[in-house]
């Protein structure tokens, strides 16, 4: 039987002049670790659902990637994390948005899928569900990284110079 696996760590407008060889090496190592962890699960006969959950959780724990620890900040300097998981065989799906305490939002999304009749929980309800389920929760400082904080300051400066509403999607 065939198995296959892929991961991504985000897309963006990184130009040649902005590249940092040391950072690139670390990014490659993070991607390789997630790829190998997920593929190992599949190779040993594990489920696609376990493979994607494990790999995404690893990337959430890596501060270089914009998810979990290392997430971007909102305009008011907080994190509002989002995640989803879907099982193609059963069409079961779970998602969370506006999460502020779960160390691994993807695991919270999976619990939404497996333990509730809902597809998505958001904000205070999602945080409360993380506690109820006994998932690992973290204080705000866990999610702070200097690089993301500086990105927020640059975005605020850009917005101050730009048209109203620009950059908020």
């Amino acid at each position: 039987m065939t198995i296959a696996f892929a991961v991504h760590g985000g897309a963006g407008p990184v130009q040649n002049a902005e590249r940092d060889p040391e950072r690139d090496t670390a990014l490659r190592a993070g991607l390789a670790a997630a790829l190998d962890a997920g593929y190992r699960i599949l190779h040993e006969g594990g489920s696609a659902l376990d493979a994607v959950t494990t790999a995404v959780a690893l990337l959430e724990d890596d501060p270089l990637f914009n998810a979990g620890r290392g997430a971007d900040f909102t305009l008011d300097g907080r994190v509002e994390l989002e995640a989803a998981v879907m099982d193609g065989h059963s069409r079961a799906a779970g998602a969370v948005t506006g999460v502020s305490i779960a160390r691994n939002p993807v695991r919270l999304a999976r619990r939404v899928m497996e333990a509730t009749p809902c597809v998505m929980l958001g904000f205070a309800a999602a945080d409360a569900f993380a506690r109820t389920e006994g998932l690992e929760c973290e204080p705000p400082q866990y999610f702070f990284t200097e690089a993301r904080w500086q990105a927020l300051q640059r975005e605020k400066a850009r917005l101050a110079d730009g048209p109203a509403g620009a950059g908020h999607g």
Partner: protein
Amino acid sequence: TVGAVALDVQGRLAAATSTGGRAGKWPGRIGDSPLIGAGTWADERCAVSATGHGEYFIRAAVAHDIAARLAYAGQTLAEAADSVVHGTLPALGGSGGVIAVDADGRVAMPFNSAGMYRAMIDGTGRRELALYRDD
């Protein structure tokens, strides 16, 4: 944003996506990652995880559109993913990319931005890891 897609030995497909959103996003803003059919999708034909400017991925229902092209138009995974990422998305003004795997173990990883951090091992065992367009 980070994500993963998988095909297991029993032929089951799955997708997962997680994100912190965008720097300086409005409090309460919801992107495409948690929206089933926009940033994340899996069915019996393919699994998709997206990354990019979320509002455009929502408007284009990117992940489900790729799956629908397999189901209704008979496109291959590569054709479907390329059509959406290089056709539908830029026509709306959106940038980013997707990773996708189909039930035969084929993997597609198209993007229309300068880079997309990505890695895969497809059904033939071919391994690839790259960060930028010219990698």
